[in-house]
């Protein structure tokens, strides 16, 4: 009897949950589907969900007409570049804070967090002028540096919360066993630190990929990543739904996959370890 009720309950919740999940996901699904339609079919009324003639022409045209891969390449360079640069700077800092904490460590961490709360418009004017004077406007290197700086606090924080979980006794034990410093690093520390570093890398690539304040304000044609490329569809090309959809699908697909892979770390990274 009890089992019958819980099975019925499970069926009801399955239906509700799948319906809600589908509705939330629907705009993305609709974009992907529309990208395979012809322009005429994309604005047809009534719209068809699946039964239309599938075509790849939009993808071909997006690439041919606007050189999609140049923007994609910029996004890759900027998001990976800024994240890797950030990791190089942050790993030693997080390491030091996790393993040799001093009375000021907490204050430094809190101060880093507070820099993240500086609204971008507060520094838009000077950054824009500095970029203009130094010839950094619309360059990949300029944008990479800015994104590295805005994400650096998150990178330090995430790494810190991961490194904090590596037990310090293990280091002592390996030292007692007579491990040389080099062996200690290669065989003990690296394997334990890698998962945390990988999670940090993943989340920050996502954040940098989707950043849409600096990427829109500091680029024009040369260094524009996908955020700016899509923004160029705001008018009047935006009315070509199928092409807009194809461009959008290409822009979000890689990061959606990465995001799904890192959903656990997302919580930790974005709440600065406050919720795990």
């Amino acid at each position, binding site marked *: 009897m009890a089992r019958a009720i819980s099975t019925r309950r*499970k069926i009801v919740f399955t239906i509700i949950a799948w319906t809600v*999940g589908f509705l939330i996901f629907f705009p993305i699904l*609709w974009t992907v589907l529309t990208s395979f339609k012809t322009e005429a079919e994309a604005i047809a009324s009534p719209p068809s969900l699946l039964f239309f003639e599938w075509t790849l022409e939009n993808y071909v045209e997006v690439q041919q007409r606007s050189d999609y891969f140049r923007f994609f390449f910029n996004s890759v360079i900027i998001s990976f570049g800024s994240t890797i640069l950030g990791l190089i700077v942050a790993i030693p800092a997080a390491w030091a804070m996790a393993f040799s904490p001093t009375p000021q460590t907490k204050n*430094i961490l809190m101060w880093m967090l507070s820099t993240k*709360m*500086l609204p*971008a418009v507060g520094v838009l004017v000077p950054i824009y002028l500095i970029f203009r004077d130094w010839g950094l406007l619309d360059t990949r290197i300029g944008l990479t540096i800015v994104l590295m700086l805005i994400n650096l606090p998150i990178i330090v924080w995430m790494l810190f919360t991961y490194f904090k979980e590596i037990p310090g006794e293990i280091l002592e034990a390996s030292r007692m066993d007579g491990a040389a410093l080099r062996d200690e690093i290669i065989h003990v520390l690296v394997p334990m630190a890698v998962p945390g570093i990988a999670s940090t890398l993943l989340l920050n690539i996502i954040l940098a990929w989707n950043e849409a304040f600096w990427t829109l304000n500091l680029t024009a044609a040369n260094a524009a990543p996908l955020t700016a490329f899509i*923004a160029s569809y705001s008018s009047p090309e935006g009315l070509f739904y199928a092409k807009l959809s194809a461009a959008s699908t290409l822009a*979000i697909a890689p990061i959606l996959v990465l995001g799904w892979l890192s959903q656990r770390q997302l919580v930790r990274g974005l709440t600065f370890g406050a919720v795990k």
Partner: protein
Amino acid sequence: MATLNTRNTARIMMAPSVILLLVWMIVPLAMTLYFSTLRYNLLSPGTGFVGFMNYEFFLTDPAFFDALFNTLYLVGGALLISVVGGIFLALLLDQPFWGRGIVRLLAIAPFFVMPTVSALVWKNMFMNPVSGLFAFIATSLGLQPIEFLEEIPLTSITLIVGWQWLPFATLILLTSLQSLDSEQREAAEMDGAGPVSRFVYIILPHMARAITVVILIETIFLLSIFAEILVTTNGGPGTATTNLTYLVYVQALLQFDVGGASAGGIVAVVLANIVALFLVRIVGKNIEA
């Protein structure tokens, strides 16, 4: 002696991060503060000290009050959607049902969509009064389609932003919900507590901290909403969808009014800092460094 050595090493290891962030924070902010006291427009030659005049202009400009109201509306509305929706979704995803993992992936997907994409997809393919999907649904039901971005522009943008941030709230609240001791829940159930009282007296208090964290973090990001406005309405019609961030952007990069934009930037910094103060306190309580 050894500790002294480690301490110095630790300092050297932290130095690059600290120095970079210090420079990144102080230099531009000092420049903004300095510019905000100047008459400085990139289009007209000559600059001069004007004291607080830029602040006076900025704070008495009717556009500022519109922007302040719009900012609050946008932040409040998106928070309402994402937090209330997030609590509901987290409770739903915590139930036993088939395909939990997949539904969870579907529900968190909007968070990974870049702002320009979600804004344009919603604007064109859903909210367009002629060929959008909402217009089709409305006409099939015999209703007049709404011109979303003309009639209710700010609410429309709030909906888009709410959709983007719903997964973030859901994911964090779900994480918090799953850390709730199941014995406690079962005990309450055995004592005859109904679903509502279980929610009010056990689940909600348990999630309170996570909810606070969600509200504060989202507020920081929502105060700086920019791309969604840029690609949908350009802040219009009039100033109907201009928030503080967008207002400063217009002054800086469209009107080239460095002085005025800097004053606006400082006002935005002060407002964000009020929020930040609360967040730093809450997060600070939870680390043992």
